Each structure stands twice: as structure tokens, then as C-alpha cells.
């Protein structure tokens, strides 16, 4: 089973475009990342630039509309994620509990779809998807 651990850092919604993480935060995170790696569960991890440099696209009958960040009405912004492979939802939660998060950060644990989760007709429609490069577990 694969899970995405999504980091939701409060305050990131107003962070400047050139914001980068602090070295001490990165150092703290690296220990956790190493633990994930040593346990053989880590598939991918990334940090995201703040929303101030992002763009939102909304759709009206297939016609896209662009909006530049920051997005005033968004209270919860994704700051980054880990993708892990574990045997159970409980194991994913236990790993998330161990993440060195500060008081204003939340992790949301979301299970990722596997092909086997889908009914036959959906799988047929998705034929060939798994062989798109990087569509399956990313290699870090």
C-alpha cells in the first residue's frame, strides 16, 4: 500500500516567492528522511515552492481561467509530501506521527490508488497507465 503524507504548514499561504526552508529545519528533516530510507519505505519526497509563485487554473466548460497566487481564500496550503510504501494504514500513521513537525504544521495521510483498487471497467480504461515513466513509485 502506498500513502502520501502531505505537509500543511500554517503561514505558508503568505510566504514570499523566494522563501526557502531554514537549514536547521532541513537538518531535522534529514534525520527523519534517513530513517524512512533505512526502513526501506521511502518512495519519494519533495518540497513545494510557496503559493505566491503558483498559478491556479479553473475550468468553465473546458475553458481554462488562470489566477496567480497567493490565494487569499486558501487557509490550508500543501508545503510538501512524502510517498511511502507500507503494509497498512496504521503503519503509515505511525510514520507520520514520527515526523519532526512544528506546532503550526499538520500532516494529512492519504492512501494512493493502486490499479487493483479499481473495478474492471476503470482498469480497462487505464490500460497502459502503469507503464508511463514515473507513474508508479518514484525512485529516490
Amino acid at each position, binding site marked *: *500500500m502506498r500513502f502520501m503524507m502531505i505537509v500543511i504548514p500554517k503561514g505558508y499561504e503568505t510566504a514570499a516567492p523566494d522563501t526557502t526552508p531554514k537549514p536547521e529545519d532541513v537538518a531535522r528533516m534529514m534525520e527523519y528522511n534517513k530513517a524512512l*530510507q*533505512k*526502513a*526501506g*519505505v*521511502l518512495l519519494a519526497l519533495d518540497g513545494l515552492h510557496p503559493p505566491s509563485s503558483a498559478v491556479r487554473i479553473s475550468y468553465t466548460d473546458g475553458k481554462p481561467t488562470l489566477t496567480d497566487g497567493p490565494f487569499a481564500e486558501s487557509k490550508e496550503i500543501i508545503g510538501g509530501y512524502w510517498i511511502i*510504501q*507500507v*503494509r*497498512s494504514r*496504521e*503503519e503509515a*500513521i*505511525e*510514520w507520520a506521527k514520527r515526523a519532526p513537525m512544528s506546532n503550526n504544521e499538520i500532516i494529512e495521510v492519504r492512501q494512493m490508488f493502486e*490499479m*487493483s483498487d479499481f473495478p474492471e471497467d476503470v482498469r480497462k480504461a487505464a*490500460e*497502459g*497507465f*502503469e*507503464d508511463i515513466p514515473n507513474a*508508479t*513509485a518514484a*525512485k529516490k
Partner: protein
Amino acid sequence: MSDIHRTIEAVWKIESTRLIAGIARVTHDIGIAEELAQDALVAALEQWPEEGIPAKPAAWLMTAAKRRAIDALRRGRMLEQKHGELAREIEFQQQQLAAAMDNALDQVIDDDVLRLIFTACHPILAMEGRVALTLRMVCGLTTAEIARAFLVPEKTLGQRIFRAKKTLAEAHVPFETPRGEDLRRRVESVLSVVYLIFNEGYTATSGDEWMRKELCDDALRLGRMLVELLPNEPEAHGLLALMELQASRTAARRGRNGEAILLLEQNRSL
């Protein structure tokens, strides 16, 4: 299974390997180490539902296991003559010092988990014993889970594990990472265990597919651990790459009617 038990099982999956390995450093016997670790798990299953999961489960489990390990050593020592005990103590300390110095000189990988893996995959064991020990001690699977995956009765698998531990103990297989020329041969032994596990999952027929497919995930996890522990071994990287490639081909392995398609015949354009 209740929520708390599922959570404790998850904690066990995360912590058990390092726990067993750390204890084995003291006991020099992975069979005894595993038993002591299991004792710690029993204590956890008794106390955590009442007291809650501790903030540092690894430390809690290690303390519980080490307490029992020291008790066991003391009980063993109490049966010896006093002067014999003293002599052994001194000898033990000297060996520790010498070993530490040896390791520093040879630059041998000083990692308890790696030692555990090499020991569990020791060539003196029958392949099925190596597989059972590895899945149990390095992947943290229960006997029941391993038995289900290999379609054998739980009792049979329990005996397999028992025999493997006994063989290791009787042959006095040391808890160590092999060195020099032996390392290459022993790495091969480990990788063949991992690949066998992967293949069991990969070739699962549709009836038991879900349970056995998890073996592929366990093998991938082992492969990743090995790449971390043996970064200079190209074979470890190669095996992981091979398994990931094969795992990504899983979707192409089923035909329109669910029949298995051999790798050679698969539609490569997919």
C-alpha cells in the same frame, strides 16, 4: 483485531528489525534476540492498551527487552562458578575492545541490522529457513502472515523458523558482517533470498493474488534497505532496479480474461 492492536502491530513492523538487531549485539544469537524482542512485544500488548502508546516506542521496547536480556544473562551466569564467571567477564570485555579496533581498521560496516540480515540469510540454512527468518526478523511479519503468503500451515512455518534458529545456534554462527572475499558470496546469498521472496509474490496466481502480491512489496522494501546498507554493492542496486522494473510490468501481466502472460509475450508497446 482492535484499533490499538493494529497500531501496536504497526509499531512492531517499524521497530522490530532494529530492536532485534540491537539485542543481538548483546546476545550474539539472533534466535535469543528475537525471543527477547517478542517478550518485549508481549509486554507492550499488555501495557500499551492501558497506558497508551509511548512517545518513544523504540526506546520502551528496547528497555523492556534489555531488562529481560540482562536477567537471562544473569541467570546463565549464576549457574557458573564464581571464578569462571569473572574470567569470562574479563575475556568478554577484551574481545569487545579487540573487535571494536578490528572494525575500525577494516572499515567493516558497523550496523546491527546488516549483521542481522547476513545472519538470517546465512548459507548454512535451507533456503526456506532463510526466507522465513528474513521475513520474520527483517520485515517484521508475523508467523501467520508468512504462512498465509507461502500457503503453508502456520504450525509448519513456526517449525521452519524454530529449526533455522536452532541450526544457527548449534553451528555457532557468529553475529557479524562478513568481510573480504567472503562478503561477495554472502551478499549473493542475501540477494537470492530477496529475489525468491519477490518471485513468490510476482508469480502468484489469481486466487491468492492480493496476499501474495504483498511479498513483492516486502521484497522491494528489503531491496531498498540493502541499497542503503550496501551502497557500494552494484548487485544490490541491480536487484532493486530489476524488481522495480518487474513490479511496474505487473499490470501488463494479465490478459483480457485475467490469464497470466509470460514476460516475453507481453505487449511491449504498452
